[in-house]
């Protein structure tokens, strides 16, 4: 009741602030009432928005453009008057919020689900058709150092934090349509609450890991001569023979810069969302949510491909991030320019020496050598 009174009072205040909006008085209207239907006029004033869309699918581009122009407009058009001196406290109803909610609940959720399902279908199909890509000549057992402990810890820290954020983020985004039918509303509420807290807590750790990643790997990921050839050969999928690559090939470099740049966008938009006390209003939060969710979905979808190629998709690839060493035949096959450098600089470690360094008995190196024969 009190809120109704306050709403009406607020609306009346707004109505009186802009006399041009008051419709002309009709002769048959009783004394003291300035409009035929004062309720609807008051409501329109309280909403302060026209042409609010229905709760249907909304195009992302249109919504983003709309939000940007609305942010611009909100700086010029005065808000309502309120004793509470906070951002957006003069806006009683954020009518554009319904469009954002519609986008988040329908368009964003459905396209994200489709993208995620599609990448799994593509990878499974690829694996069935192509299988694990073998190394020409098999494994030699002779190894070459590829990554230091620090680099591998940096990579895996980012991976662990990213996975935690991806899982909790997907629960929040897709949980309603996918998990409520499975677990019920009560269990999902529990899961969503836990995911939200976990997501907010781990978010800043992603930014820290990203900066560590930038410092550790940036120099070797600068594009160089020969990278374009890799691209033209489709990473070896087009034409005959392997595509030439340095320490990192063109595909890996592109993935690295995607992680850094999209990761920064996700981190900054996430920090804006998680700290609503720095003067950003609802419109900016809505815009940041869209930016955050869309960028995160791009990274999640591409990361599934990265995980596949770095593990079951390519023979000998996981070793580099597991032990820091890779088979020299793998280096020659996938990174021939770097492999050539390893041969020239005599950086190759024998199978026996490698086994000793890994704390294994020397004869444990034999199966790998046998396999390579």
């Amino acid at each position, binding site marked *: 009741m009190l809120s109704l009174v306050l709403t009406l009072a607020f609306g009346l205040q707004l109505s009186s602030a802009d006399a041009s909006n008051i419709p002309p008085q009709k002769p048959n209207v009783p004394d003291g009432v300035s409009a035929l239907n004062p309720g609807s006029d008051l409501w329109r004033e309280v909403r302060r928005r026209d042409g609010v869309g229905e709760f249907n699918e909304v195009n992302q581009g249109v919504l983003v453009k709309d939000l940007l122009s609305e942010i611009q407009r909100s700086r010029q058009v005065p808000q309502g008057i309120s004793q509470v001196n906070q951002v957006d406290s003069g806006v009683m109803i954020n009518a554009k919020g319904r469009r954002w909610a519609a986008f988040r609940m329908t368009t964003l959720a459905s396209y994200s689900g489709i993208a995620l399902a599609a990448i799994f279908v593509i990878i499974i199909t690829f694996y069935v058709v192509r299988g694990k890509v073998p190394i020409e000549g098999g494994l030699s057992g002779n190894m070459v150092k590829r990554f230091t402990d620090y680099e591998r*810890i940096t990579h895996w*820290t980012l991976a662990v934090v990213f996975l935690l954020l991806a899982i909790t983020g997907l629960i929040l985004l897709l949980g309603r349509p996918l998990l409520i039918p499975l677990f019920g509303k009560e269990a999902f509420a529990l899961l969503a*609450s836990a995911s939200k807290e976990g997501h907010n807590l781990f978010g800043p750790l992603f930014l820290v890991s990203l900066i560590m990643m930038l410092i550790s790997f940036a120099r070797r990921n600068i594009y160089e001569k020969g990278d374009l050839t890799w691209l033209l050969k489709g990473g070896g999928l087009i034409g005959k023979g392997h595509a030439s690559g340095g320490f990192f090939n063109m595909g890996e470099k592109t993935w690295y810069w995607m992680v850094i740049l999209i990761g920064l966008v996700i981190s900054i938009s996430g920090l804006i969302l998680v700290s609503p006390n720095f003067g950003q209003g609802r419109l900016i939060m809505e815009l940041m949510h869209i930016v955050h969710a869309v960028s995160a979905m791009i990274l999640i979808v591409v990361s599934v491909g990265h995980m596949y190629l770095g593990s079951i998709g390519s023979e000998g690839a996981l070793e580099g991030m597991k032990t820091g060493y890779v088979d020299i035949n793998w280096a020659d096959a996938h990174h021939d320019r770097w492999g050539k450098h390893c041969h020239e600089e005599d950086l190759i470690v024998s199978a026996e020496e490698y086994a000793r360094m890994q704390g294994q008995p020397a004869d444990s190196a034999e199966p790998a050598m046998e396999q390579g024969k």
Partner: protein
Amino acid sequence: MIQYLIDGPLWYFSLAVFFIGVVWQLIAVVFTGNKADLSVPRDSAASGAIKTFFSRFVPHREIAPAIMLPVVAGYMFHLGLFALLFFAAPHVVFLEENLLGFGWTPMPHWAFIVAAQFAFFGLIVLWLRRLVNPVSRLISTLDDHIAAILTFVVMLTGCFALLEGSTGLRLLHRFTVELWLIYFPFSALMHTFTFVPSRMLTGAWFGRRGVDA
């Protein structure tokens, strides 16, 4: 029923296992004894013990660059966890109402979040180093991995229950804490208490022999 079990009997059982187990282990360490050192002491054992106890908080200059990452991560994790355990508002209230009968000023919420992030980051880095470094991997036992994972799970369920609005999440956190308390005395987690006598004993031995290390 589950709530009764977790808030009641299982809580008291885990506390009993924790306290009796820790005291039992420490007594066992004290009574294990050492062979009498018959050599003529070159220097004071007591000063050696104290010196070593404090000097080991900082890595030796010669090896510092090689172990900087685990040292920094170790401090982040241990200080973060200490702050969370004893200065997080829900823990202060819990300790006051259930164990101690008195409380102290808790951290503000923002400090709570920062401490949790430090602790999580430190623990993840330390555990990954255990997995990727060949020497650490070789000397790690199953117990080390269980202790790290269990501690991570306790912290994770704690962070899930941050809103303090759900009985289910609070019970989940408390249940994992109870498992952790039961596992504690029989695991590498005992280093919480044993690192002090261990360091001091080594320091006393060094001091008596005049070793400056």
